[in-house]
Every structure is written in C-alpha cells, then in structure tokens.
C-alpha cells in the first residue's frame, strides 16, 4: 500500500509539472496580454503600456517568467492577482465557499434523486416509469442550462415571485433562511442535468448487478427482498459510482460557470472566466494547479476507497 502511494505520488508530481508547463506557455503565448484591456482607455499611450509591462515583468523571456513563477510556487507563494493584487490563494479561498454551497446542495440533490430514479428504473426495466425516466434524462441533458435558468427566473421570480432572481443572499441580511431561499433555484437548475447523469449511470450499474448469480442465489435462499435490494444489489452497484464520484468531485469545486452567471453566484466558475477574460495569469495558473491537484487527489481517494469496499481489488 505504501509503495503504491509513493509511486502514485511521484507520478502525480510529474503530472503537475507538465500541467503547469503547458498551462503557463499556452496562456502566455496567446496574443494580447493583461494590458491590452487598457488600450482603448482615453489618453492611453503605447509608451505607458510598455512601461507597465516592464514594471510588471511581463516583457521578460517566457522561460524566465515561468521559472520565477514555479520557483515561488515551490516555496508556497502562489503569486498575486493582477487585478486586485491579493494573494492567489486568498482569491481562490474567497470563492470557495460559494461554490461549495451551490455544488454541495445540487450534488446531494442529484445523487439522491438520480440514484433513486436509476435503481427504480433498473428494477422496473421497460415499465412506464423507466421510459418516463429515460425521456426525462434526454430532455434534461439537452436543455441548455443558461436557457433553463433564465426561464426559471422568469417564471418563479418575475411572474410568481416565489424566489429571488439570483444572488447568494440579500445584501444586509445574510441569515440562514436568506441563504436557503436563494439557494433553491440555482441548486435545482444545476441538479436537473446531474440527476439525469446520475440516474443513467445508476440504472446501468444496477442492471449489471441484477444479472449476477449472487443476486439470484440471495433471492433463492429466501432473503427478504428489501435486504437483497439494499445489501446485494445497491451495495454492489455503488462500487462504480465511487469511481464516478471521484471524477465528479473536482468539478464540485471548480464550479458551474453557466449557473453561476445566470444566478450571479460568486463562485469559482465565474472567477475562472473573469480571470481568463482579464488575462489575470497568476489567478488562472493558480486555478489550474488547484484543479489539477484536486483531480489527482480525488482520483487517488476513489481508487483507495474502491479497494477498501471491493475486496477483489488490491492496490500494489
């Protein structure tokens, strides 16, 4: 186990260096740069832009800039945002809560509902419920989140007035109930697609297990149906779900760009897009490294977890 972990650790380190190299060069080689947004400001001159580039160290050779950045990263300094000058880790941390709240709520919803639909569809394969669930999944997966979000706002905020038209909380309030009422629409809109995804995976995983000998044996030896379902069927169908969760977990923290935009939710997705739009290289690189680390850690955790749950798998 320890040997396995060590080898995974070294692999991951090499992977991270590669990600940083590719990310940094692709980002910097794209034309333009953090100063081009100022070009059309009244009174801006090429001279002033050149001076700023010099002062910000943007005109050094790219490899020097990379080594400088990477050297600092190794010492724990993720750099400072070009926009507000704050340390990158602070910037990321500042958006983490919003994302965790939204993604957490919507994931809970989608796993619970999606899982239930998936299992039920599989048990009643070919029933009207199964067909209904399939059609629902197709529709939910095809609707653009942006459109669905705007329609939800139109109906439930502007027309019915049930929910606020976006934002994470009312400025000046911020009580628990206030957060909750603001969370409903974005979480449901976001969950809609994920329910569809999870229900499809869960359905096919359950179907796989249903055909296994041990299920027939369990039924044959007269175990109560509920016990067969929970212990033998669902228990085994969950194993592939763990791997899926390992893949989904990083997206939980990278945020949901579209939903965050429609509902003005100050999460990581917005941060990434805004930072990219302003060529805020330190923050973009920080986010890139942050998500790369998350992906690696979550996959590792999923592998370990699967091994723990499924005795047939051994990590060596």
């Amino acid at each position: 186990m320890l040997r396995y972990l060590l080898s995974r650790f070294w692999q991951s380190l090499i992977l991270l260096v590669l990600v940083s190299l590719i990310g940094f060069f692709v980002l910097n080689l794209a034309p333009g740069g953090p100063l081009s947004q100022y070009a059309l400001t009244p009174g801006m001159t090429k001279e002033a832009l050149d001076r700023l580039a010099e002062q910000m160290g943007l005109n050094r050779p790219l490899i020097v800039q990379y080594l400088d950045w990477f050297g600092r990263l190794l010492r724990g300094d993720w750099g400072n945002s070009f926009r507000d000058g704050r340390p990158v880790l602070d910037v990321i941390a500042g958006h983490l809560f919003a994302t965790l709240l939204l993604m957490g709520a919507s994931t809970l919803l989608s796993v619970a509902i999606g899982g239930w639909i998936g299992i039920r569809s599989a048990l009643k394969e070919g029933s009207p419920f199964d067909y209904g669930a399939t059609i629902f999944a197709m529709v939910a997966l095809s609707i653009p989140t942006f459109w669905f979000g705007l329609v939800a706002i139109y109906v439930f905020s502007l027309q019915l007035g049930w929910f606020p038209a976006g934002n994470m909380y009312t400025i000046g309030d911020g009580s628990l109930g206030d957060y909750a009422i603001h969370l409903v629409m974005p979480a449901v809109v976001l969950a809609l697609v994920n329910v569809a995804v999870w229900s499809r995976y869960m359905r096919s995983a359950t179907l796989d297990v249903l055909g296994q000998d041990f299920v027939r044996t369990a039924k044959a030896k007269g175990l109560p149906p509920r016990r067969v379902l929970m212990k033998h069927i669902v228990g085994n169908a969950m194993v592939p779900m763990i791997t899926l969760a390992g893949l989904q977990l990083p997206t939980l923290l990278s945020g949901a760009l579209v939903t965050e935009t429609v509902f003005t939710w100050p999460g990581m997705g917005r941060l990434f897009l805004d930072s990219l739009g302003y060529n805020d290289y330190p923050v973009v690189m920080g986010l890139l490294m942050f998500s790369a680390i998350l992906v690696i850690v979550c996959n590792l955790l999923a592998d370990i977890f699967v091994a723990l749950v499924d005795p047939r798998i051994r990590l060596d």
Partner: protein
Amino acid sequence: MTNRKNAFSINRRQSLAFMGAAGLAAIIPGFGRGGAANAQTDPTGQVIVGFSQEPTVFNPHLPHIEVDEGVYYAVFDPLIDVDPDGNFFPLLAVEVPTQANGGISEDGKTWTVKLRDDVTWHDGTPFTAEDVKFTLELLVNPDFRSWRRNGHELITEINVISDTEISWTMERSFAPYASILATTFIVPRHAFEGVDPNSAPFNNSPIGTGPFKWQNRVAGDHIELVANPDYFGDGPYLERLVLKYIPDLTVLYTQFRSGDVDAVGVQWITPDHYAEASTLPGRVVDIAGSATFESLTFNLQRPQFQDRAVREALYYAIDKQSIIDALYYGVPKPTETYMPREYAYFNPDLPQHEFSIERANEILDEAGWERGDDGIRAKDGVRLSFTNSTTAGNHLREQAQQFLQQTFAEVGAEMTISNLPPAVMWGDYWMMSEFDTVIVGLNCFAGPDPDTSDYFRSTSSPATGGSGQNTWVYNNPEVDELLVEGASLMAQEERLPIYRRIQEIMREDLPFLPIFQYAVVRGKKEGLEGYAANINNRIDTWDVRSWKWS
C-alpha cells in the same frame, strides 16, 4: 453587519423566509430605505447599483478599467470635478484655479490651489497639502505602476505653501491639466509610508475623503460602502451604497426588472431592452449621450486609403441610419465628428453625411478608380480591397460589418471581414497599426477637455515611433499646430475656434468615417434622486454624494 435601525426589516424578512413565503423577500429589496426625517444629518437607506463588470482595483492610480472608478467617486475626492454641463466645481479645493482668480499664472505655468481646511481622511487624520503633493509625486514615481502620467509629467516643482495651500510649476502652459485634475483622486500620504505603493494594504482597503467609507468587499459579488458622517460637503444622504457585480447584461436587466438592483450602472441596459424597460412600472429609464463615437477607421499607410476620394466615397456608401435603426434600436445618434454633441466645443456646422451609392460611384469614377473584371475597382495597380477588423464576438458590430460589406460592394470596394479576439485586436494589431480598417468605439477625451493630441498629432503614432494612439497614422501639419496652440490657451473663448476648426479638418480629411455617437440606456427606480447623467465622467456614481430616496 448589524444595523439597529433596520432590525425590524431583517426580522420580518427572516420570519417570512422561515414561513416558506420568502419569495416575498424579493419584492421588498433594499431594506430600510424608509424616509427618515432630517436626512442631511442622518443618512438613511441604501442603494444597490448593478455593474456588469467587477470593480477590483481600489487604488485610483493603478491601472484600472471604467467600472473601478465607480468606487473612486464614492470613496475619494479630486481637487475639482466637472458637472454635466462641463463646468468645473471645487471639491477638495476652495475654488477652481483660473487665470482670472490668480490660481493659474499669466504664463499658464504656475498653478496655486487653496485647499479646504475642514477635511479629514476616513481614519480621522486631517487632510493637508502634503497629501496633494504626495499624490502628484506618486503618479510619476518610476517605481510605481502609475495608471497615467499625462500632464503630471510636466510638473517640474511642487511647493507646499501651508497645510491648505499648494502650488506647482509646469514646463509649459497646459490647459487640459484642469480636466486631468478632475480625475486625479487625492490619496493619503500616511497610508503609503514605508510600504511599496504597488502592494500597499491601502490598495485593498482604501482610505479616502469621499462621501462613503470602505466597508467590505465580497470578491466576485459586491462592494459595500457606508456613509461618511464627517463628509465635508453636502451629503451623503444614503446610509449604505452597494456596488453589485452582475456578470451578464441580460441578468443585469432581469435584476433591474425584479427590483434586486435599484440602479443600472455600466454597461447599462442593452438597446434591445429599451422599449420594454420604458414601460416598467416604478422604473425611470432614460437615454444619455456617451463620449464614445463609433467609426470605421482607416490605416492611412495603406495605398488604397491615401487617396481622399476613396475615403469620401466609402463615407457616402455607409447607410448609417439603417445600421443605427436595425442594429441599435435607434438609441445612438449619427455624428460627423469625434466630439460628443454635449461638449461646449462640439462643432454643429459640419457638412451632413448622406447615404448615396450613386455619389460614391461618381467620386470613384472621377478619381480614376476603374472597375476590373471582378467588379472591384483599381487604380495604378492598387485594388480597392481591404480587410475590416473588430472585436470577435461583438455581435452588433459583426452585423454592422455585413451592412458595410454589402454597400461597399455596390461601389466596387471589396471588404473582407477579419475579426480578432479582444486581447489580440487591441494589442499590437491596433496600437502598431497592423490593420487595414477597423470598426472601433473611441473616446478621445479624458474629461471635458477638447484636447486630442494623443490621437491626432503626427508624433502620436506608435507605428512610426511616436507615443500616443494615432493609429490612423494621420499626419496634417495644420492640425499639429492647432493642437499645440489649443492646449496652451486657458480661456474657453480663445480655444473654441481652434477646436471647431480641427473638427472641420477631420471631417474634410476623413481619416475615420464617423458613424454614430454612443448613447446608453440608464435605469433607476422611481424615487431615487440623483444619478444624473454626466458625459464628462466615465461612471454613474460621480454624483453619489447627493443620491437619496424621496
């Protein structure tokens, strides 16, 4: 964030939320704006302004974008400011320095400014002439990432005469400096002692003299400012000002409709929502002129554009009104000049543009541009063929390009569309004049001063080694001279004929084909006083000190 005065509202909200009827909360936004008596001494209520960009730079002298200035006008003060009619008025200064009152010397080189003696910084430190001196020096400090040095670079000596009086001497008489001062927010010297000004703590928790104090910022969401009870001037009347970031224009408009924002700031309501917005109950919507003008801009280095006849013919071939009506819902107004019509220096007597394919063809025929087999004109081996570029993804401009392409084809000019992402478009491609033609919205003015030296002088083209933004590579000795003369004169009546003449020449030379002057659709809730349009400032909060609920 406790707020005793509004405790009742909060409780009511909470209970509503818990009762499951919290959707109602959306209907009573901006809690606690009830009109308390004696507003002048006791600011009440709050206003939420929605911006489609996020303010992130809070030191007004670091590189920033338009929306950041929304914070500056609330937190800081310049020495003087400009009202919507273009008149200066004093803020930190006691009076606006002029030659008449002795504030500016006869030769225009020495400026003396008397300062108010009743101003304190938000942290309680008294404001003095030393702060003004520090600010002016910071702007040209070689170690500081100064946003703009234009004008400040001309200062050769600064004298602090007393705590409330300062004077400085400039290399030459430079009238545009008054406008520059109107956007030069004074920052406190004591906040920068012993720290690197590029990374001072001040930059993320600014201390100013303005009507509102920095409260807190939720990155990616909003900035909260609270009334400065010790503000030296009239106001503030609001207890709290919230600058809310709403990243999408459709969503911004939706939140204006739903009442989540009280006023719509930069980049306002999109023209396609104008008609609907005007009918919303409880909302006031108006159109205000902007200092930005849209033009088809030539690179005059290209051989096909060196012939004035080509530029004139293409101007005739632009169907301005159709572009404005079909794409911009008739919101902006056609223009003949780079100068906004609201400016005192605007020249109303320029020849009026006319859309005439026939006339365009005549001009080109007369000038000897003959149609080839493919229908494209050519003269002396130069084909009347060129690319046109603008920001990729700007749908309105992309459609305008198609309008132009069609009408240009009718006069035998071939225009190929070649759009680029913003970072590429406005990088060297624009600055170093690597384009043939561009559709661009330009604002050539820093405040109400009519000077455009950085744009029109022959020495301002980066492509030919100059400094500035003359990307047309326009070169007219008469304009050069007029610009120098105009910048050195202080009196408006002396400057007026000069700048009107420059507009005449630009209309004659046509280095760019003016299409329209931008206008913005602004919206606020009924009952919000203030939030006046001001073409001389880039941002809606310029008069925030006087905003109040009626």
